[in-house]
């Protein structure tokens, strides 16, 4: 068998695999484009009948539910917590990468261990703390909670990127008269830009997906995030599936774009065990 043919056979196998794996996303999109009369069927058509395809479900769910408000809240929380986490994690990651004393190693390991903490457990003291601090029902509480889970991991990610940059860069900068902070700002950070981008995208995806804090630390409906809003459909007597799937598509779309930007870094750049919410 020629290797050319073989490559195309592998391509077909991979394409079929991907199609099967992505069926749930396909089905969500198809459902969102069809009216209930077609969707609620004992034999739902696997290919959408094109004459019935419309954006009515999207228009409907935006009219009946405050989807835009949810998206705005999710965006504010995701952007806020990503910026704060990224600054903290960049400084810490640089420190852990360049000065590897024993105390630094212990600090680094402690950061990593925090990944073990269950969100549904840590939210209990968060609720108590934020109640005491009168921060319940604020977006600041959600930003703080997301920073708590984001920083440890982002720090390790940034450390990994800084480890790939040679120390000679700072030595050269020092000879040119840079202080260590100037060297970080003018020499290292510009070079670490791909790492910063990957880290920011990772943090944004995690914050956007976050559910348990948003469900617990805010109670006012006008502060709900997308995930809380979507979950509020579940358990209703009659679920409006096309509307729910339309809201799901809207909430998923920005993540898919971010992910396609991030993906090249995932395989090439990151070390084992470095990626997971």
């Amino acid at each position, binding site marked *: 068998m020629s290797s050319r043919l073989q*490559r195309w056979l592998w*391509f077909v196998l*991979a394409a079929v*695999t991907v199609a099967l*794996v992505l069926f*749930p996303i396909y*089905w*969500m999109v198809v459902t969102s484009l069809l009216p209930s009369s077609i969707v*609620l*069927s*004992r034999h739902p058509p696997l290919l959408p009948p094109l004459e019935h395809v419309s954006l009515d479900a999207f228009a409907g769910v935006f009219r009946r539910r405050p989807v835009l408000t949810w998206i705005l809240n999710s965006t504010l929380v995701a952007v806020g917590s990503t910026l704060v986490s990224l600054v*903290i*994690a960049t400084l*810490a990651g*640089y420190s852990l990468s*360049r*000065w590897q004393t024993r105390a630094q190693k212990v600090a680094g390991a402690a950061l990593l261990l*925090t*990944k*073990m*903490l*269950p*969100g*549904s457990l*840590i939210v*209990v*003291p968060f*609720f*108590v*703390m934020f*109640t*005491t601090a009168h921060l319940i029902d604020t977006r600041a509480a959600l930003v*703080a909670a997301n920073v*708590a889970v984001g*920083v*440890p991991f982002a*720090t390790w990610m940034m450390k990994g990127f800084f480890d790939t940059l040679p120390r000679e860069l700072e030595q050269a900068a020092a000879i040119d008269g840079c202080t260590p902070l100037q060297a970080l700002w003018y020499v290292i950070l510009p070079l670490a830009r791909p790492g910063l981008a990957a880290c920011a995208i990772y943090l944004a995806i995690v914050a*956007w*997906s976050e*559910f348990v804090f948003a469900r617990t630390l805010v109670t006012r409906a006008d502060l709900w995030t*997308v*995930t809380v809003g*979507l*979950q509020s*459909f*579940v358990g209703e007597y009659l679920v409006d599936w096309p509307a*729910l*799937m339309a809201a799901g598509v809207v*909430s998923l779309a920005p*993540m898919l774009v971010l*992910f396609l930007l991030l*993906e090249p870094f*995932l*395989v090439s750049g*990151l*070390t*084992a*065990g470095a*990626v*997971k919410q």
Partner: protein
Amino acid sequence: MRPSLHDAERRLAWLLLAPALLAVALLIAWPLYVIVQMSVRPGKALAISELMARPLGTANFERVLHQQALWDAFWHSAVYTVGSLVPAFVAGLLFALLFHRAFPARRWLRSLLLLPWAVPGVVVSITFLWMLDASYGVVNAVLRDLGILSTDIAWFVDARTAMAAVLVPTVWKSFPFFAITILAALQSIPETLYEAARVDGASAWQRFRYVTWPGIRGPALLAALLNALWTFREFDIIYASTRGGPAGATETLGILVYREAFESFRFGTAAAIGVLMLGTATIFVALSMRVLRKEFA
């Protein structure tokens, strides 16, 4: 005396690390301390000052350990963790082996394959709730058309199938992590090893067993450990689809803690369950570290 350059550098190192340590102290260490305090100081109090004023006692733990719900939740957590880890690992390994080959458009197909990782847990839940719906779900429809199913199965609603129903979306969301990790490990195996094996007449299975597997075992085991820890504490997928029901069939420890705190408003017993949960995870990590240390030594 002027501080030496060395001292100045060390100060800078800690200065840069300080915001992260502060964030962790305030938002991780202190909350953990509050959890432990809540678990050992029985009684009702929401304010931290009131909480600390109460006497120490083991009532929360006694109460929790006598609840059948706790032992059920332990069992459900174990089933859920193992039940999603094994299929996700196997799928991730197979996909990684497939995508390690050279074929057209590999880069794009790989991106698409890993997409489920980026889908929020709640969105995964609602999608599978719809697909596994008893009357109108596409899964039942296909199974009916294939003649496999004669009656509808209410996957998420029937206590006998609910655990399987929450496992499917969990596997779907977690296999990309294994695929990524194993793919990265595969890329680090030198091609010359395969050539040598081929020259020696090794079969495909032998090449996998003696070249591929030793090259990926370390990272793969580490990924399995991390994934087990994450699945053990999983909340979003289960809560958003079943809330631990029906009749507690999918109530894992992560769900039980949350319901105890925010549905029954018993923070003390919730904290006690949390402490037991963390203890279990710690023992698990300590045991796995022995295996892993051998791997990476």
